[in-house]
């Protein structure tokens, strides 16, 4: 080898390596990546299955802590005369503030449900916006899914408008401007009615066994009846509820206490309930049962939502619903599995028996109990109340007494109501609603709807302020983050 080649040899080697480097741009592939095992919005909403999944995600939010558990119970039952906070004095103190009407706009409860319901609304909006673009989907399924999302969106807004009055009305998932003022309560209700009308025409009256739990046209009609009742639109409430009653699709469950057992789930009386199940592997439960479960021995939960003295005293003599609603210390558990023992850390111990569930896999936090949103007894009383206001007392009495007859369960108690005086009958219906629906998260809305919150709460809770506490405050952080677009409710500034 000539000397020149010898000195050049390293250079050759270098050239080989240099070529290697030059070939390296292929390596820029390392930058081309996509998320693994998940879709992006760009490649989702392409199939029927995906469309269904997106609607399932809206239902999913119904089981969440924010939507139907801790703060929800606080702002429906604990705030009302039906129950006190429960648990130990220091636990969940913000709910004590709810109970005592000492809460401020910074209280955790209003901001929790606010976030929970708007998350549901976002998911529904995502469905409603993207469904039309899904290629190759059965048109009837597309219609149904849109109906389900519309029903759920209406339900979310219905609770929001009842708690807060007018709220920001978001109907699309990605608004360009985040500073959104409150719509009026009337505008929110108009949207609720429109969504429920969409649902009524889009949804089937029932589903095959595998899809039980999805919203039906009957649920949408019943919900719309309740909206009408809330709005004082008696004719509409009566028409819609009678339409549901006359459809013959629903009937009262034979026993009152049976409604709240596992067998009572999705029964003939069920119009809409949030589906939950305690699988061995988890994922299908809710904490609804846990937060209201017996605290101490046996250890079934946290002991919130304690039935109040006022509630216990409100039942008519011998009404079996009292013992079916309230679980006392010393009482045998509904499934006979144990006896409630006293806990010295808890004052005036009592529990919500309607939220009791039997032993189940996955721990207390994996509660299997369906959350009953709307049942036939509620609808009958809606009908009765609307009909009474329309001076159709005979019809009203019929539906009221159907509820009482089931409640008495053959015992010689709860005689039929016979008065046809509109005022007396109104009182009787209201009282019936309380006894029938106690601790099912309706009481506060009933008190406000019927303008009785002041007269009922003031004697029990001196901090109650008229023309203020009927509505909850808009969460302070929301007002701040809206850059002032949101206005606070009266009395909270």
């Amino acid at each position: 080898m000539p000397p020149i080649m010898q000195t050049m040899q390293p250079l050759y080697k270098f050239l080989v390596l240099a070529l290697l480097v030059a070939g390296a741009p292929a390596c820029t592939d390392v930058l081309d990546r996509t998320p693994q095992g998940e879709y992006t919005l760009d490649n989702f909403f392409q199939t029927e299955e995906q469309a269904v999944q997106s609607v399932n995600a809206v239902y999913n939010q119904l089981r969440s802590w924010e939507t139907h558990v801790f703060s929800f119970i606080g702002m429906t039952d604990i705030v009302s005369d039906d129950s006190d906070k429960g648990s130990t004095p220091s636990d969940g103190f913000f709910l004590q503030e709810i109970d005592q009407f000492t809460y401020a706009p910074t209280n955790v409860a209003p901001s929790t449900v606010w976030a929970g319901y708007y998350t549901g609304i976002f998911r529904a909006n995502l469905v409603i916006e993207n469904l039309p673009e899904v290629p190759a989907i059965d048109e009837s399924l597309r219609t149904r899914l849109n109906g389900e999302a519309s029903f759920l969106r209406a339900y979310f807004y219905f609770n929001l408008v009842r708690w807060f009055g007018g709220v920001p009305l978001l109907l699309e998932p990605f608004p360009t401007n985040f500073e959104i003022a409150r719509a009026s309560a009337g505008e929110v209700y108009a949207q609720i009615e429109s969504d429920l009308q969409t649902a009524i025409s889009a949804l089937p009256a029932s589903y095959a066994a595998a899809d039980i739990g999805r919203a039906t046209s009957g649920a949408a009609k019943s919900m719309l009846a309740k909206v009408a009742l809330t709005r004082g639109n008696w004719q509409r409430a009566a028409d819609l509820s009678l339409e549901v009653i006359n459809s013959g699709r629903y009937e009262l469950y034979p026993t009152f206490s049976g409604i709240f057992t596992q067998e009572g789930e999705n029964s003939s009386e069920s119009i809409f309930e949030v589906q939950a199940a305690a699988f061995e592997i988890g994922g299908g439960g809710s904490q609804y049962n846990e937060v209201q479960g017996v605290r101490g021995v046996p250890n079934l939960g946290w002991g919130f939502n304690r039935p109040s003295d006022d509630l216990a005293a409100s039942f008519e003599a011998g009404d079996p619903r009292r013992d079916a609603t309230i679980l006392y210390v010393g009482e045998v558990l509904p499934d006979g599995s144990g006896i409630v023992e006293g806990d010295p850390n808890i004052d005036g111990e009592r529990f919500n028996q309607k939220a009791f569930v039997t032993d189940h896999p996955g721990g207390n936090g994996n509660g299997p109990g369906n959350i009953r949103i709307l049942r036939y007894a509620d609808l009958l009383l809606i009908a009765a109340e609307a009909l009474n206001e329309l001076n159709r007392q005979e019809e009203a009495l019929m539906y009221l007494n159907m509820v009482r007859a089931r409640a008495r369960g053959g015992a010689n108690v709860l005689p039929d109501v016979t008065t046809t005086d509109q005022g007396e009958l109104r009182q009787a219906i209201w009282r019936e609603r309380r006894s029938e629906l106690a601790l099912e998260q309706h009481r506060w809305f009933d008190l406000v709807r019927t303008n009785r919150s002041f007269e009922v709460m003031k004697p029990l809770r001196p901090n109650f302020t008229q023309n203020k506490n009927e509505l909850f405050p808009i969460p302070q952080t929301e007002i701040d983050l809206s850059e002032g677009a949101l206005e606070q409710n009266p009395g909270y500034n």
Partner: protein
Amino acid sequence: MKTLLFSFLALLLTAPAAAQVTVDGTVTDGTDPLIGVSVQVPGTGSGTITDLDGRYELTVPAGSDSLSFSYIGFSPQRVAIGGRTTIDIVLGEASEVLQEVVVIGYGIQQKDDLTGAVGVVEAEQLTDIPTQSLGQSLQGKVSGLQIIPGSGAPGADAIFRIRGIGTLNNADPLFVVDGMILNDISFLNPQDVESVSVLKDASATAIYGARGANGVIIITTKQGDGEGQITVNAYAGTQEVVRQIDVLNATQYATLINEADVNAGRQPRFANPEQYGEGTNWQDVIFQQAPIYNAQLSFLGGGEQSSFNLSANYYKQEGIIKGSGYDRFTTRINNTRRVKDWLTVAGNLSLGYNTSDNVPTGSILATAYRADPISVPRDSAGNFSNVSAIGNTGNPLATIEYTNNRSQTYRAVGNAYADVRFLQDFTFRTNFGIDFVYDRNRNFSPVFVVSPSQQNLISDISVSNSYRRNWLWENTLNYAHDFGIHHVDGVAGVTYQDNFGEFISGTRQDLIGEDPSFYYLNSGDVTTATNSNGTSGGNWGLVSYLGRLNYTFDSRYLITVSGRVDGSSRFGDNYRYGFFPSVGLGWNISNEDFWNDGGPVSRLKLRASWGRTGNDRIGDFDYIPRVASGVGAVFGGEPVLLPGATVSSLANPDLRWEETEQTDLGVEVGLFNNQLLFEADVYRKFTSGVLFPAPIPDYIGADPAVRNVAEVLNRGLDLSASWRAGTGTFRYSVGANASFVHNEVVTLDGNTQNRFGGALGVGGQLGTNSQPGTAAGSFFGYEAIGVFQNEEQLGQFAQLNGRQQVGDIIYRDVNGDGVVNAANDRVVLGSAIPDMTLGINGSFSYSGLELSFDVTGQFGNEVINAKQMARFGAYNYEQRWLDRFTGEGSSNVIPRATIGGPNFENLSSLYVEDGSYVRLRNVTLGYRFATALTDRLRMQSLRVYVNGTNLVTSQKYTGYNPEIYNGSVFDNGIDRGDIYPIARTITAGIDVTF
């Protein structure tokens, strides 16, 4: 032969001139005489060299008052004669100071030529502390580097923070081990490490571009050199918890609970508190004396053509909390071979395997702290007692007993490179590195019943496996050339890195047996099976172009320009590539002609640098709107969980790196022939584009997108000084470093005024607020100004939310509106970020005896003692509750006894404690046997030692350790009682070299 020559030269150079004074003496390196040292009378031309005994004799002309000594490889020294006729001198080795070679990014440099701020720790300083973690051994060693032990759990890693916290997100530095770029170094055995370089300023870190903003730690492992040697190092010792928390004994507890009952309007529950005596100290129940062992065997050697280092290490540490333990086996194979004149190839490979036995130490610690002292761990029959009856806690001993959780990590980290030298001044290197991690964990819960709240009625098992691999391919071209007094060197390169990982896990219930041989999924009921599989540990790629140019003029003026372009898969399409430049300047003033060589200042250098770096730890795909699954719904008469999918977070297509601009001014001073070295750096680090999920109203219904909106400022001062001296066989050195940092959130998103964080573990309460203008993660709560003594004071002072009782804490009504509330009256109560961290280290040797010590400290940080606040039951109290309010005039600090309630549930200054401390981190006393003995034993050296770690700590904090790290800047400094305490460790060891 050599010595003869020196003697001859010495004779030759000794001037037989007429003289007024003759000075003589001996020059040594501390132990041995130095032969041929040049001894001069400055400015006269008069001089000599030392003879073979290190002695000199010199005639000093009239008017001269000093002598200078210089010797290759040693620091020159100049001393005043001061009328003496005999002057003995010890010269210090210069190689440790000025000719020190510093490993920097993609190269090495003489310390003198550096323009950047780089701290260096050498091997001998890294093995003082008995630990498997390199990080733990670095505490207090480098100014500007804060090491937070984090946890005392066996095998725990330390947390590194370089120059404050320049982000609201992940503030970990980047690690580079033998050229391999990594995010964690838990695999490293400290005894394999040759040196650690801490790159602090932008001139040093900009070559790491989008990953340099939090600083860079470069680690070089030991390479063999010289004659082959075998070293054996071993130590064994015992550990115990550094201190215990003072909680109430059973009598005191019963007294206070009775009082709380009465305060709540209940009947007191304990008839006669005295009957319970001392009761149980639950800390004694969970803690133990725990052994620690380590053994290392290394073979090293090398020469012109090759070098090798083969080492093996076994480390075993039991935990001071029963049931926890760790052991690790590591090997290292480092090989270099000069295959041809122009080609060198090398490979470094570390293989390791470790096992951790885990117990839920967080809940065990919290439970031991809370558990009522009346209960006992076991009843008379030896069964675990129900501790929940009174105090509503579990039985921590039962938790330990029934936990079977073991994790194992297998890890291989290595690289191989080829260096091709050509055209004399060029070297091309292609380097391929890989980091492969395989993690396994299995957890088995047997059937047990301790109490209704502590039971497991169906056995269950979970098993998970994950792997992560990270490869790096770097191609760099180096150039270096001296043109007379101009020196130029540079590097340019292209690199690729790719990281991906995946996990798979499953669970089952109702196993067919409880023996470890059944700890497999298949032993469980198949109908209860769950499984999960997805990516983990990062899915990202990086393409980078880097370069650096150094120019030095006459060893006086230095300039470094460097930069890197990083393209990352994590950056949104709109910002896929970022550019990170820097420039550094240096001036070796003491090399100037005008510099007076004779002065006390033997060295003076000024440095200045500016540069821009990034932080790419921003999540892998946060720029794409992703569809989240796992939001299924239940349907059906026979309920079935059907899958659901939705969008849960908004995305930000403009997502990019966080960007830090750093300016640094440094001065390096050597005094008294560099016996005293001093270095100071003042810096300003401004980070913009910090990722922040700028909050949006909840009515939008989805989580906000992260956006590059926040700004964080760190400015500070790093100081370090060292002094080395000695005479004869006594030598010593002491060093100290101190770091001052001011941390401030400049803005969050321009609008947001509050960023709350730091769960206190009390009813969802948060303890920190990172408001603009305050330190990130500042503690935020009420100022406790007293205790309501009587009804009159209830009217006099504002009440929390307008309703408090006598005996409650009085909070300051900051805005004076007559009511104390969360919206208006909370203030900054402190921060977990110390104003100053301190390290002092020293070593002394006399004959064979060696004593070394490290002191570490921090000042100006606070701790939220949040564990005092959580009271979900009748938990035990800390001792200070003995001084509670029991009636007017009793206490104006500690409120009345209650089980829980408003005095506990609101963060106030009552729960904020001073976190300053000074700790004697390490003391080692060793003895190196004389050569007479080692020669007989055919050893090169033999050393035995005893070591004490964390022996003494001076702290005000009442918890175990005020260095509270919870993993997030918003969460640090909050002691929820769940952090594994550090241990006091005593070990004895032996080092042998053959």
